[in-house]
């Protein structure tokens, strides 16, 4: 429609205005032009994001000995990995870690966010303080928690009067410790995301609810939670996907011992420590599938209307 360039009345269908054929062939349709403009970013994204994934999938089809490729293996690596216990143990460990840490982070982060959203003396300082754990690099906080939870010198044990309790050297406490460290570190991040959401809720919404007779709890459940849904969704999705990839905490705190071998720890073992790139690539491809699957499930269950949009809009 928009391509009729002249001001002359639209010619009847089939009639070609003088020179129209040529003009048409030179002009690029709006759609094509749009695709052309978008192409560079799509190509960049494909190179940056898609290539490593596809390359890993490709590598996973080969048999390796040490670092040396031995030949095409088809799906042998997958059969090996999926029939062995390690992968499934790691999946279970990772899922337990994810569910527990995300749940605690959400509840605590929500608490922090509600606190930080209040007007009180020293709010700025509180906000900054709460964020300190999140700002510390994970490897450092992992090291710190290792030191504090370790039997020697045993800070936490002394504090709680637990004597020689072996947090990091026994099941299931090693996993509990890692969840604790992750919650400590990341609850502030969740709080930050939720706080951003809270700040978009106008104060008079709460005043209206108070006048309507809502108690503090009802204001939270009927006003805050529904209006915070987008922020909650983003926070949960980020944290879930992030938790599924957890590596640094178990790597530093337990080295994957005592039931803390997560998927990423296992991937690291086969890609770096052993190394066996074929099995490593298989594991990372499977990890990708797990993370992607859970992400898609997530969007499907919780965030459909947030991602795709409300039908009323």
């Amino acid at each position: 429609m928009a391509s009729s360039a002249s001001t002359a009345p639209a010619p009847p269908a089939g009639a070609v205005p003088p020179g129209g054929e040529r003009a048409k062939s030179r002009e690029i349709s709006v759609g094509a032009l749009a695709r052309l403009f978008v192409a560079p970013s799509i190509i960049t994204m494909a190179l940056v994001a898609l290539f490593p994934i596809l390359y890993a999938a490709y590598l996973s089809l080969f048999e390796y000995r040490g670092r040396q490729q031995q030949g095409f293996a088809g799906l042998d690596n997958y059969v090996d990995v999926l029939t062995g216990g390690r992968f499934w143990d790691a999946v279970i460990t990772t899922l337990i870690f994810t569910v527990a840490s995300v749940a605690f982070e959400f509840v605590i982060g929500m608490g922090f966010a509600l606190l930080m959203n209040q007007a009180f003396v020293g709010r700025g300082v509180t906000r900054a303080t709460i964020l300190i754990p999140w700002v510390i690099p994970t490897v450092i906080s992992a090291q710190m928690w290792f030191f504090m939870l370790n039997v020697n010198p045993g800070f936490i044990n002394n504090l709680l009067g637990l004597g020689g309790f072996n947090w990091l050297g026994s099941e299931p406490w090693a996993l509990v410790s890692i969840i604790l460290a992750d919650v400590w570190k990341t609850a502030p991040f969740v709080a930050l995301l939720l706080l951003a959401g809270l700040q978009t809720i106008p104060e008079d919404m709460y005043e209206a609810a108070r006048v309507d007779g809502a108690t503090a709890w009802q204001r939270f459940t009927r006003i805050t939670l529904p209006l915070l849904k987008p922020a909650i969704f983003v926070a949960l999705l980020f944290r879930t996907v992030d938790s599924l990839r957890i590596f640094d905490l178990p790597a530093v705190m337990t080295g994957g011992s005592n039931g803390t071998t997560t998927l990423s720890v296992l991937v690291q073992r086969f890609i770096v420590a052993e190394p066996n790139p074929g099995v490593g690539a298989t594991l990372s491809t499977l990890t990708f599938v797990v993370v992607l699957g859970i992400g898609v499930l997530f969007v499907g269950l919780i965030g459909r209307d947030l991602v795709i949009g409300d039908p009323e809009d």
Partner: protein
Amino acid sequence: MARRFARFTAVMALALVAAACAGSSPEGSAGGGEGEGGGEGGGGGEELVFAIGGADAQPGGTHTQVVDLWNEQNPDKPVRIEVLPNEADEQRNAQALELQAQGSNFDLLGVDVIWTGEYAVNGWLASLEDVRGEVEDQVLEGPLESGLFEGELFAMPYNTNAGFLYYRTDLIDTAPTTWDEAREICGAAAEEAGISAYVGQGSQYEGMVVNYLEYLYGAGGELLSEDGSEVLLGEGDAATTALEFMRTAQAEGFYDPGFNTMTEEEARGVFQSGGAACMRNWPYAYTLMNGEEEESAVAGNYDIAPIPTFTGTEGGTAVLGGFNIGVNAFSDNVEGAKEFVVWAATNDEVQTLLGERSLPPVKASVYEELGAEDPVLGQLGEILTSDAIGVRPPVPAWSSISEDMQETIYSCYTSDSPPAEQCISDLVTAIQEDVE
């Protein structure tokens, strides 16, 4: 308020990005070093690049001083250090990436004794057989063996390492020579002092494998056959004896309660603060605990002895560690590089320097000269020349074997099931797969 908060967050984010960038700088700074060393060399041809990692490769570190020494003596054949990351796995990765691509950027490679097999079988290392004769009579046998792959010298000994039994002289008169004695002597001393009996490397990592191999070799066991093709771990009962010992030590509290999360530094921390009667550790701890550099509750009250065995073998047992220097097979200057490795293994100044800096030398004469006044070198000299020493087999699949051992030995010794025989036979199966 909200705006200020947003700005604060933004600054934090920037800071994190900056920190992340700074974290990745070792590679960047390594590239930048090219101008410095190269330009000054003046005369001769291309400089040799020595890729090695860790604190000793930093400016002022031992490796740097060794290289400086070489450059002083050979201004026409300069060598420069390419600093690799601190983590052993990362060092290996950095070297492997280069070698896999048949790159010639590194001429000299700092090779951990356990990497030799993998590098050699991949054809990454130039054979050093033609210079073997120049060092053979000067270098200790054990370290030399650690540089061999299938009988051929691929990595030149540079510095070696062997563990000791540290014990508290204020609590213990005579060092134990068998594990039964150790259990008794260290246990009794611990009970009297109200501290732990024994600390060592019990965390799930390579160090624990070394600890286990010491038990294994001390029980007369072997891991692999000479050519590395056959798993001998299941032969006899040495493997189960070693595992049962660890299991009992863990269960009955001979080990410190935190033993299974300890690496070298955690063990030293406990011993140094007076929390344990006996400790298995490397020589580096000896000087650090003398109270001069760091506070030490045990200064003047500890000594070293060979690591006990189950039979009381003279000279105890040891599993060698340390770094050898390999020559990149794809180097443009293999001959020049060989010259350097021979020099580093045999030069008195170099080897004495290593000895003084807690990196046990490989040259036999250094132990004879310094052994009298330096108790660590004296003790080491004895251990390294005894029959008791063992190595981790220089097989290409060592890291896979190690990973399997870490996994199985750790989970078995920290719990009471499955039976030790089951553990060992599982492990044998896994290792068999690795070496095939």
